[in-house]
Each structure stands twice: as C-alpha cells, then as structure tokens.
C-alpha cells in the first residue's frame, strides 16, 4: 500500500482531450476575436463539425440520425431519440466510454420538442469526454440507461424529479430530491422561482406557506 | 439506641459482623453519599480530563474551572421535563432506571474500604457482587425494550449479549484470584471480600504479582471485561453514540436519564473496587509487610494530608493564575475558599496522622488507620477511573461482532487456561 501510494507516473495521458480536436488552439484562437467583438453583440465561437474516426464510424452506421459537433473543444453528438439506447451502449461497449459523468436535461419551452436530454460521458482509457444530446417532446419518455451505467439510476431520478421526463425501464423511478407527493417539476422554465406546492406544504408541514 | 451507637465505636468488625444495625445504616448512608459525590466528581473530572486530552478546556464557566458544573448539571436534569414516550410501556419505562441504580448501589454493601470499613463482610462477598452487578443489565435491557423504539432495542440487545458474554470471562478471572486465596495453611480459600484482601496480606503479595504472569493475565482479562461490563469505550456498544444515537437511553430525559448515568458511574466505581480488592491489595498501603517500622507507618499516614495539601496547592495556583479582571472576582474568591477548605482538611488529616501515630488502641490511632485504609483504597480505584477516561479518549469503538469474538474466542479460552494453570501451580506449590 505504502509503495503504491508513493509510486508516481499517472497512467492516463494528460491532455488527452487534444486527441480528437486540439483543444488549446480551439479555445485560444477564437478567444482573440471574441474579445473585441464582445461589446457589439458577440457572435462568439460557433459550433464546428467534429471530425474523427469515431464520428465517421457512427455516421456510417446511423447516417442522418446523428450529428457530431465540437464547441470550444468539447465534442458532442446530437442524435435522434430513436437511436438513444443503442448509441449509448455502443459508446460504452465499443468505444470505452465507461464512465457516465452526468445525465441532465435542459428545457426549451418554445421548441416543439421541449427537452434536451444530455449524457455526459468520459472514457478512462481515452481520457476523452463526449456529450450525447437528444431532443424529446414534453410527455415523451426515453429509454433508461441504468442497464448501461448503474450510476444512471439516481441521475435519471433527478432528471425525472426536476423535469418530469420519464425513463422507460428504470428500476425505481420516483422523486429523489423533492418529497414524493410534490406536484410540479421545478427546473422547467414555466415553474416560477417562488412557486411551490402549497397543498403539499399545508398538509405535510402544517403551515400556510413555505415562503 | 445510644448504646448501640457508642458500642460500635472503636470496634474492628464491620457493622454487619458486629450485628449493629444502626451503624450499618450509617455506613450505608455514608457510602451512598460518598458514591454520589464521587460520581459527580468523576463527571467533572471526566469532562476536564477528556477535554485536556483533546486540547480544549472543558467546563470553565460554572464556578472556577467549572467546579460547580456537576451541580448545575444535576439541577438542570432534575428540573428538566420528564418525557415518557406515548408508545412506551409506562410502568417498565419508569422502573428500568431504578433497577440499574439499585443494582449499582447494592454492590457497595460488601466493598471493603478497610478491614472494618464495610457495611457487611458477607462470606460470599464476591459472588454477591457479581450476582448483583449482573442484575444491573436488566435495567438496561428493560429500558431498551420499554422505550418501544428501534435504537434503544438494538442497544438493549447488544448490551445483554455483551454482558452475558463478558461475565463468563470475568467470572473465570475472578475464580483464578479466589483460588489463590486458598494457598494458606488451612487450605481453604474465601469468597469474602475482606478475606481476599487479608489473604493477600498473609501471603505478602498482591495477587496481580502472584505466580507472575498468571495473576497479571487474570487481572488484565478482568480489566478488559469490566470495561465491557460497564458499557464504556471502546466497548460502549449499547450506547454507541454515532450508531444508535444514545442506545438504550435514547428516549430517556431529565431525572430518569441522570439515574442511568449515576448507575453507570457507580457501576464503574464498583467494578474498579472489585479489581482493586482482588488483585491490587484492596485497602493495603504499599509494602505493609516489609516497611513495618513505625517511621514507615507515620510516613504513609502522612499521604492523605499531603494529597490534600497538593490539591489545595493546585487550587492556589489556580487562584494566582486567574486573570486580574473584575469578571473573575467571585470565581477567585470561590476558588480561594475551595483551596482553604482543602487546606483545612489537609491540616485535620495531618493532626490525626501525627496524633494517632502511637500504635496503642486509642481512638485517634484507629481513626488514623481507618483514614489510611480508605485513602489507599480510593487512590487505587481512582487510578482505574482515570484509565476509563483515558481509554475513552484514545480508542475507537469496537464493532459488535468483533466484541463478541474477543469475548468468546480470546478472553474465554485465556481466562479458562489461566484458571487451570493457576490451579495446577497452586497444587504444585503446596
């Protein structure tokens, strides 16, 4: 143990993110033009197509359902909802994205498909991050990835709790941070910051209002 | 009444043996008060010592250096609302702390503070002690059950399993000490607490050093088992604060809770007394058989006075070192008064020690002797009390299965083999 602790040498190559597209130049280069433009409605860096053998492989397999882009050196796939369980499983099994960092969602109420659901993945072997995005409509469900990464369990529960997105095949999909009987999903844009479930508060806490 | 009172004075028998009920009552009263005061002092001492182990000051506000803290605590606990949970079994909940307290205090009837400084010298003294102290666990178990809550119940279960397991090792260690008492001309041992100490005196050796490693091993077994028996760290499974919130007394509050505390500390003093009696020569001063000259007698009889002088000196240092601020005026006066009381007691003891040095049977001499006995006994017990605090400050808590494993797989075989080897050696020596 003691020897283990003392031994140096980090096994994963640092700066691995450079592999697909060089991050530092990408981050530094647009910085220069972005600055002067900042006062006058900045455009900032724009997402650029992401090219790598990985993308080619998936594109040849799935074709139009998949779009790969890179922004500020961070890569992401925008995929069609129908591809979701397959592509996640392939990313883990074939491409060693064995660590599901995070699952979250973003609400765009004006869009037809209101929700972006995001999987933030990391590969220990490649030291590389990738995000997988998909759009779903309000009320639509999405396949659960608990069978792919056990860690998705609580993360999906939190997404369900906060956005009301249901995950098919989740072993125990229920609220995690809010109480079980709560109505409403607070991270939706139509849920006001002062809003609360008055009925729940009155029944369970015995007070008029939690504000 | 008066004759009964006067007749006992100067006797060298215990009130029980002298069949003097009045003095027995007086002794009971003295012991009850003494133990209660000792528990309070222990409470203060534990908080202070523990605090200093842990680089903090401990109680400092109530009285000089928190000296009045136990009194404040006692008053607070007495005035506190006494809550009985609605779902609890009222009667059992009410009676549980009494059982514990009764068992803890009943033991003191046979503890020999001196050859005649005990309520009674039962010829089954040590058995009585073990028997009654084993009743104490009933209070804990019943309290845990009556609270009708999960944590107390688990605490009670743990505690009952623990007590039963450690009582075995403890009993075997005690038996090996009792075996040693039979190494006399008559060939019969004794179970009497006073008899055990006298046997050590006759054999001119503390049983801890008898048959060298054997007595020591038995003593160590007992010393470990007694921590487990009193539910103290690192064996405080039954009230493991971080696991079971407070174990069996989670639901208790106020006076009832304080009774549990009183019982716990009283039991600690009681088991320490057993250890002192069985292995450390009880009331005997160091080397009573070798340093017998009157000069030595005088030297040792000065110890109580010196101890109190020392305490008074510490108090005086406290007075001197107290910051010169009007806020501390009352505290300084109080501490000075305390120092004066201690000094006065020391002077009194000095007078008695010097006045009672003639070996003839006058009252002062007997009184002086009695003080010596009680002093050395209490001093030895105090060492154990300090060890209890030390253990608590140093060690993490054992896990329950580890505790049971140690009890059954380590302590029991060792104590059994020590017992057998002691018996064999005892026969061979004869």
């Amino acid at each position, binding site marked *: 143990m003691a020897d283990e602790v003392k031994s140096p040498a980090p096994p994963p190559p640092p700066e691995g993110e450079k592999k697909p597209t060089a991050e530092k130049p990408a981050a530094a280069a647009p910085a220069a033009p972005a600055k002067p433009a900042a006062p006058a409605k900045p455009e900032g860096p724009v997402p650029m197509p992401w090219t790598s053998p990985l993308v080619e492989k998936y594109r040849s397999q799935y074709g139009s359902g998949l779009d790969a882009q890179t922004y500020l050196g961070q890569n992401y796939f925008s995929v069609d909802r129908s591809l979701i369980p397959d592509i996640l499983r392939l990313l883990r099994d074939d491409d060693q994205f064995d660590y599901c960092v995070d699952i979250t969602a973003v609400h765009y109420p004006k869009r037809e498909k209101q929700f972006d659901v995001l999987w933030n993945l990391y590969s220990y072997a490649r030291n590389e991050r990738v995000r997988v995005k998909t759009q779903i409509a309000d009320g639509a469900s999405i396949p659960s990835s608990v069978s792919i990464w056990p860690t998705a369990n609580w993360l999906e529960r939190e997404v369900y709790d906060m956005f009301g997105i249901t995950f098919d095949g989740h072993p125990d999909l229920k609220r995690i941070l809010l109480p079980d009987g709560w109505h409403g999903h607070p991270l939706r844009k139509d849920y006001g910051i002062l809003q609360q479930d008055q009925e729940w508060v009155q029944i369970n806490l015995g007070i008029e209002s939690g504000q | 009444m008066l*004759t009964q009172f*006067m*007749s*006992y004075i*100067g*006797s*060298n*028998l215990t009130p029980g*043996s*002298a*069949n*003097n*009920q009045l003095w027995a009552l007086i002794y009971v009263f003295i012991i009850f008060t003494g133990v209660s005061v000792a528990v309070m002092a222990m409470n203060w001492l534990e908080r202070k010592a523990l605090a200093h182990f842990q680089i903090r000051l401990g109680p400092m506000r109530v009285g000089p250096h928190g000296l009045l803290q136990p009194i404040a605590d006692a008053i607070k606990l007495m005035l506190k609302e006494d809550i009985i949970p609605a779902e609890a*079994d009222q*009667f*059992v909940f009410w*009676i549980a702390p009494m059982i514990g307290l009764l068992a803890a205090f009943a033991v003191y009837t046979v503890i020999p503070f001196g050859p005649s400084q005990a309520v009674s010298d*039962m*010829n*089954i003294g040590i*058995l*009585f002690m*073990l*028997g*009654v102290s*084993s*009743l104490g*666990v*009933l209070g804990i*178990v*019943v309290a*845990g*059950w*009556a609270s009708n809550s999960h944590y107390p*119940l688990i605490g*009670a*279960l743990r505690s*009952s*399993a623990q*007590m*039963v397991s450690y*009582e075995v090792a403890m009993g075997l260690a005690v038996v090996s000490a009792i075996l040693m008492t039979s190494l006399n001309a008559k*060939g*019969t041992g004794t*179970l009497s607490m006073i008899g055990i100490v006298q046997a050590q005196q006759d054999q001119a050796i503390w049983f801890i050093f008898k048959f060298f490693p054997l007595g020591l091993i038995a003593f160590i077994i007992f010393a470990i088992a007694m921590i487990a028996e009193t539910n103290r760290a690192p064996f405080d499974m039954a009230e493991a604060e971080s696991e079971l919130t407070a174990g069996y007394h989670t639901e208790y509050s106020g006076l009832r809770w304080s009774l549990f505390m009183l019982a716990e500390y009283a039991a600690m003093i009681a088991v320490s007394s057993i250890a002192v009696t069985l292995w450390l020569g009880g009331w005997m001063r160091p080397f009573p058989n070798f340093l017998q000259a009157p000069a030595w007698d005088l030297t040792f009889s000065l110890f109580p006075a010196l101890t109190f002088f020392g305490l008074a000196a510490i108090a005086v240092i406290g007075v001197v070192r107290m910051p010169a601020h009007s806020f501390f005026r009352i505290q300084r006066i109080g501490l000075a008064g305390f120092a004066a009381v201690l000094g006065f007691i020391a002077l009194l003891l000095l007078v008695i020690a010097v006045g009672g040095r003639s070996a003839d049977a006058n009252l002062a001499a007997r009184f002086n002797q009695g003080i010596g006995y009680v002093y050395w006994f209490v001093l030895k017990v105090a060492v154990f009390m300090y060890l209890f605090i030390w253990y608590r400050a140093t060690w993490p808590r054992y896990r329950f299965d580890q505790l049971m494993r140690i009890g059954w797989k380590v302590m029991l075989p060792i104590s059994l083999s020590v017992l057998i080897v002691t018996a064999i050696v005892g026969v061979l020596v004869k």
Partner: protein
Amino acid sequence: MNPAMNSAVNAGMVPVATPWFFYVLAGLAVASGVAVITRRNAVHSALALIVTLLSVAGLYLMLYAPFVFAVQLFVYAGGIMLLFLFVIMLVNVERSSKERRFNRMWPVGLAAACALMALFVFAFVKGKALFPDRMISLPESSNTEQIAGMLYGEAGRMGQYTFAFEIASLLLLVAILGAVIMTKKKI
C-alpha cells in the same frame, strides 16, 4: 473490645424481624408468581418472575444458605432471566397480548395444578416428621465450605455428590454442544 459488642456477637447472629421478613418475602414471591401467569405482556411476566426469583433468593438467605442465594441471583435472575427477556423481546409481544389467554386447555391445566397441590399437601401431612419445626441452623460462615466439601470432597476424599455433580456438568456440556450444532446451519 467493647463488652456490649461482644454480647451482640455471642448472641449468635440473631436475625432482625425474622417473621416479618419471611412473610414479606413469601407474600412477594406468591404475588409475583401469580402475576407471572396473569400478565398479558410477556415482558411484564418475565419481570414478575425475576421478582419471584429474588424473593426466593431472600428466603434462601434467611435459611443461612448464602451460597445458594448468590447462585440464584447470579444464575437465575442475572443470567437466565436475561436470556428470557432477550428471547421475549424478539417475539412479537403485540400479537401474543391480543390473543385469548386461557384457551381450551385450561381444564387440563387446572386439574394438573390441583393434582400438584394435592401432592404437596399429601407430602406435607404424611411426612410431617421430615420437616422439623425449627431449622437446623448451620453456622453461616461455613455454609459455602460445606457445599464445596459435599461437591468436591475434602482432603483427598471424594465428596458425597462429586460423581453426580460431574455427571451433571457433563450433561450440560453435551447440551451446550448440541445447541451449538443445532444452530449451525451447515455442519
């Protein structure tokens, strides 16, 4: 030594208020014995049983049998009753207290109790000679030694009950081993 005290010693351990103690202890034993079988709650019954055992222990002490008293305290009240409580606490007391206490077996029980009572009375009447009016008072101090002598023998001689005692301890050992084996699921 003081003459007054000497006389007290010579008077020979006169117990205080003996009949009073006896009746209190006997009454307590009977009352708590009744409570043992009438309480609905098993824990209450167990506590009452402890009181019974303690009163009986007190009676032993009055009979100058301090060793038996201590063993009663140590083994029964302290050890066995603790295990009783341990088991009872694991049993669902709620349910047992709701159940009907006296089921159809009660006439049999009553008959058995009457028969036992009759046996006691018969033995008492028939064997009155065996029960002297006064106890043979053993000197208190040597009681334990005498028991030891009976059980283990003295001065190299086998005691009266040594063999029986050893057989009993062997039986207990067998019982313990049996219990251990039975609780071990896989042997």
